Each structure stands twice: as C-alpha cells, then as structure tokens.
C-alpha cells in the first residue's frame, strides 16, 4: 500500500489469524476489524431505512393513496424509525469510528476488553435480526412509531413485543460498548497521555460512553415493563389497568433524549478533529471543548420533558424542562464558537471532509436553533407533532450525525484502507447531498408551521406544492448518496495508494502506517502534550 508499507509490516487487513474468510471478520478480536464490520452492517441497514424514507416521500407526493395503504404507511414510518434510530444512528459513529480510532488516538493496542467488544457486535447483529424479523412475523410490523407510546403500544395488535425486545437487545450492545470505551480510556492510555492530552474525539467518545452506560438501562426496563403489560396485563401504563401513560413517556424520554447525545456527541468529536487538520491550526479552546462534551452529556440527562409538553404534564414541570433545555444550548454553542474561532485565519483547505464538516455546522445550527422553538413551551404547543418536528429532527440527526459520519469516512478512509477515493467525485457528491438534503427537509419546517401533521398518510391539497418539492429533494439526496457510496467503495477497493498522513494531521492515527498494523503501534508512541500541535 503506502510507501512505508514495503515488506516492513503486515496491516490489519492482511494479517492472517486463526480464521479465514468471513470468519476472520466475525470472530476477530481486532478493534479495527470490529469497527469495519459494524460499518458494513450499518451501511446495509441505512440503505434499507433510506429506501423506506424514499417510499414514504413518494406516497406523500400527492394527497390520498399513491403507492401504499395507510396501514402499510404506519408500518413503514415505524420500521424506518426503528432501523434508523436503534440500528444506525445510536451505534453509528461510536461503534465504527470509536472502535477503529479510539485505541489508536490514545496510543493503545486495542480496547480494554476485546472479547466483550466482539460480543457487543454479535448482540448488535442479533438485535438487528430480531427487529427485522418483527416486521414479517405474527400480525405485521409494529405501527406505533419508533417511540412505542403507551397506551396504544399496549393494545395494538401489531408485532410490538418482538420489536421492543429487539430494541432491548440492541440496548445491551450499546451498554457493553460504552463500558468497554470507558475502561479503555481510563486504563489503556499510552504512558504520558493524561486526560487533557487526549484528542477531542476521545473526549466525545468518553462522554458518549457514560451516557450509553447510564441511560440505556432505563429504556431497557421500560420496554420490559411494556412487554410485561402486554403479556400479563400488569397495569404500568394503560389507564384502564390503573397505569399512567405519561409515566411511559417519562421513562422512554429519560433514555431517548440522552440517546440524541449518544448520536450527536461523537459527531461533534469528529468535526473537532477535522477542523484543525484542514485549517492547519491549533484547536481554539481545547479544555472548553472537552468539558463541553461532558456538560452536554450531563445536562442532556435532565431535559427529556421537552418531548412531553403536550402530554398532560404539570405546568411546573413544563417550565422547568423548558429552562433546562435552553441551558443545554450553551455547551453546544461553545463548540460552534470554538470551531469558528479555529477557522479564523487558518490555512483552510476545502477538501471533502472539511466540506462535510462545514455543512455539518450549517445544518446542525439550523437544527439547534429550531430546537429552541420546540424547547419553548408556547411555540412547542403550536408545532408539536407536525412536520416541523420531522424537519428539526432530521436536521439534527441526519444533517448532524449523518453528515458527520460522511465527514468521518472521507477523513479516515485513507487510514482505514490505505487507499484514496476520487476527490472530484467526492466533492460533487457532497454538493448533491447538501442540495438534496435541504430541498428534502427545509420545506417541512414551513409545512409544519402551516399545520401539516407528522406521520399522516394523507393531507389537504394546499400542502401539495411543498410536499412535491420535498419529494424531489428526497430523490436528489438518494442519488447523491449512491454516488458518494460508490465513490468510497471504489476508492477503498481500487483507489490510489494513500500516504500515511494525507491531510497533514497531528494526532496519533496519522503517525502510523496506512492501513495500520494489527496492534497499531510497534513501539510505545511518543505523546505530544498538545495533540493539535500545528507549527
């Protein structure tokens, strides 16, 4: 591969272990290979979820029935949500790039518990299998939406039990991964690397791991309570059995709001790695960015109630949650400010990873500021459960985590595979994705304010022009994604040989060959106290 490879080492891709073929992947203990098999699974699942999204957009191109029945539509948005949330974006960046790069960034040979890491992947695949099977077995796909709101989820005849059990199993994988990363960061840092010498992606993964570890058991218990209620008639959530449906929402969102930070914190970490590299400038406010990750994770635990302003919650709780929601914007804004300050007077190089990072900031800021509308009780009541929420959510999750994932894969692919993708095609694909994304989701802000409800199969004719624009955006985005993925696949398989440090980065992954050797470092790495030491 690269010039430094010539017969000097065997990369993790070429290393011949105990097993061969596919077994050398699914039985691997190497954190890098585990990262890659997570990525392959996630790309397949993302493609299925995206196809479902496109089918829903086609259905909404005109009022009334277009290509599917109402019940199919209900199943479609539920399955789209379950796949995208539980199988793609929650594990997403953390399991792929966290697994691959966290040990390298802190100068370790592997994660603390390699066997547990492999087990996490198996549990993840089992959960994915159960979730997909739930769509085809018993009484058809669940029609509750990915939130499984009670009391409907306690009474609907669709296949809720298996889907919730799948989410429960996926949660286990998440907990084990979080635990592994926390111990890795505490115990496996190279000699001389203190906490405040770690690259900021490691800090983001650290904050994410704590959230995974502490929040996920809550949704696990909640889903088990839901299953118990359906199977044994125990009245947790159904008022007719003496339960409280608002309790379900509390328990669900105590996990699922922090889950948003499980999705977005690693994304913030990726962007923080990319910006100094492509500006060739030391990151502005290292400690503020590191601590803001912890602050986002901490405060993010306490804001779940803003999903419930119209649920019948008490007024006192509503203003309290609204106040806390505004607080969480502060550490997020610290990051954006520091990124912009880093760019100021930097030697900016507009390569694809940086373009994706820039579009991340743009889209995440739109998602964040529209989030404040939803965090404010008065405006939330107006736009709750409308297309506005769909737009806000996708700007944060897809525009945020999704574009950060694209940024990360364009940034680290040369390191992961030792080969380079076609830069021109990557730039064109970025342009198509950016235009398609905004055309798809921005009209939904307007539709929502005008009163278009979300999760509705049908709508009034007055909404059609913007629905058509949104659907056109969906086609453009899918086209851009196919173009982008094909370019990346071609680059990984047959691209030009990449040098060890194509972007002139300073963090540890750029100091080792591409692709990395099996145990990353042949000798203990020399730790620079400043990981972003651009002269």
């Amino acid at each position, binding site marked *: 591969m690269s010039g430094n490879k010539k017969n000097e080492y065997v990369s993790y891709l070429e290393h011949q272990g105990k097993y061969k073929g596919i077994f050398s992947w699914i039985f691997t203990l190497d954190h890098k290979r585990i990262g890659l098999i997570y990525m392959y699974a996630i790309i397949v699942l993302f493609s299925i979820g995206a196809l479902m999204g496109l089918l829903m957009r086609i259905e909404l191109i005109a009022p009334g029935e277009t290509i599917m029945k109402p019940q199919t539509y209900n199943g479609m948005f539920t399955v789209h949500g379950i796949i995208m949330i539980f199988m793609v974006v929650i594990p997403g960046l953390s399991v792929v790039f966290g697994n691959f790069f966290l040990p390298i960034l802190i100068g370790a040979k592997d994660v603390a518990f390699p066997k547990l890491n492999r087990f996490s992947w198996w549990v993840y695949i089992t959960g994915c299998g159960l979730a997909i099977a739930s769509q085809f077995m018993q009484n058809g796909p669940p029609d509750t939406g990915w939130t499984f709101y009670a009391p409907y989820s306690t009474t609907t005849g669709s296949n809720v039990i298996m889907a919730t059990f799948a989410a429960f199993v996926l949660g286990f994988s998440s907990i084990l991964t979080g635990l592994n990363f926390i111990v890795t960061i505490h115990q496996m840092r190279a000699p001389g690397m203190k906490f405040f010498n770690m690259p900021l992606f490691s800090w983001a993964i650290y904050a994410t791991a704590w959230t995974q570890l*502490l929040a996920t058991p809550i949704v696990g218990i909640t889903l088990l309570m839901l299953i118990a209620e359906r199977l044994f008639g125990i009245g947790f959530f159904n008022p007719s059995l003496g339960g409280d449906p608002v309790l379900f929402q*509390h328990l669900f969102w*105590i996990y699922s709001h922090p889950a948003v930070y499980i999705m977005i914190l690693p994304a913030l970490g990726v962007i923080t790695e990319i910006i100094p590299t492509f500006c060739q400038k030391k990151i502005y406010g290292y400690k503020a960015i590191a601590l803001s990750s912890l602050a986002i994770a*901490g405060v993010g635990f306490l804001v779940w*109630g803003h999903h419930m302003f119209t649920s019948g919650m*008490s007024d*006192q*709780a509503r203003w*309290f949650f609204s106040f806390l929601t505004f607080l969480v914007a502060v550490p997020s804004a610290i990051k954006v400010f520091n990124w912009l300050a880093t760019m100021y007077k930097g030697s900016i190089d507009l390569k694809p990873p940086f373009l994706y990072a820039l579009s991340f900031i743009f889209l995440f800021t739109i998602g964040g500021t529209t989030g404040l509308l939803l965090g404010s009780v008065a405006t939330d009541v107006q736009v709750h459960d409308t297309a506005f929420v769909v737009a806000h959510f996708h700007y944060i999750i897809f525009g945020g985590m999704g574009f950060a994932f694209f940024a990360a894969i364009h940034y680290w692919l040369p390191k992961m595979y030792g080969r380079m993708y076609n830069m021109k095609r990557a730039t064109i694909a970025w342009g198509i994705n950016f235009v398609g994304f905004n055309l798809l989701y921005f009209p939904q802000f307007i539709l929502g304010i005008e009163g278009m409800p979300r999760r509705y199969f049908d709508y009034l004719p007055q909404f059609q022009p913007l629905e058509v624009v949104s659907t056109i955006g969906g086609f453009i985005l899918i086209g851009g994604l196919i173009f982008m993925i094909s370019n990346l696949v071609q680059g990984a398989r047959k691209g030009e040989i990449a040098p060890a440090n194509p972007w002139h980065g300073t963090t540890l992954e750029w100091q080792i060959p591409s692709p990395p050797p099996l145990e990353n470092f042949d000798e203990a790495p020399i730790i620079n106290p400043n990981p972003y030491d651009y002269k």
Partner: protein
Amino acid sequence: MANNVSHITDYKVLARVVLILMSLTLLTIFVTSFHLGAFSVTVALLIAGVKAFFILTYFMHLKYESLLLRLLVTMIFVLYAVIILITFIDYAYR
C-alpha cells in the same frame, strides 16, 4: 481494583452486610403498612439507596477503590436522584 491489589473481605463483615440487607428488606415491607401518601415511593427509594450503598461498598469492593472511581459512582447516584426528583416535580403538581 486500585493498583491491581486484591482485597479479601472478612466473612464476618460480609455476614453482617447480609443481615443489614435482609433487615432493610423487611423494613421496606414494614413501611408499606403505613399510609405515607406521596412519600411512600421516596421512603422505598431511600431504603433501596442504603442497600445499594452497602452492596457497592462491601460486595463490589468500592471501599478499596480510588477516590476517582468512588466519586464517579457517587455522581451516578446523584444523577439518578436528580432524574427521579425532576420526574416527581411533574407528579407533585399535576
């Protein structure tokens, strides 16, 4: 373990902890005979919290761990307490 040192807790200490845990379980059942209204959950959680303290300290050897680890575990308890408290703000005023 801090500094990878193993600690073997005396059986007598472990037996005392078991007795304390069983007593607290009986106390949990006993207090249900009083009508504490909105405070019934609070009392149950407090007793459960004390039980968790004993389990973590003696059975899970937190007593012998570093200050950092003990602080991290304490923070988790504080976090869960705050989450429960906030949830009860809703229930108290609904």
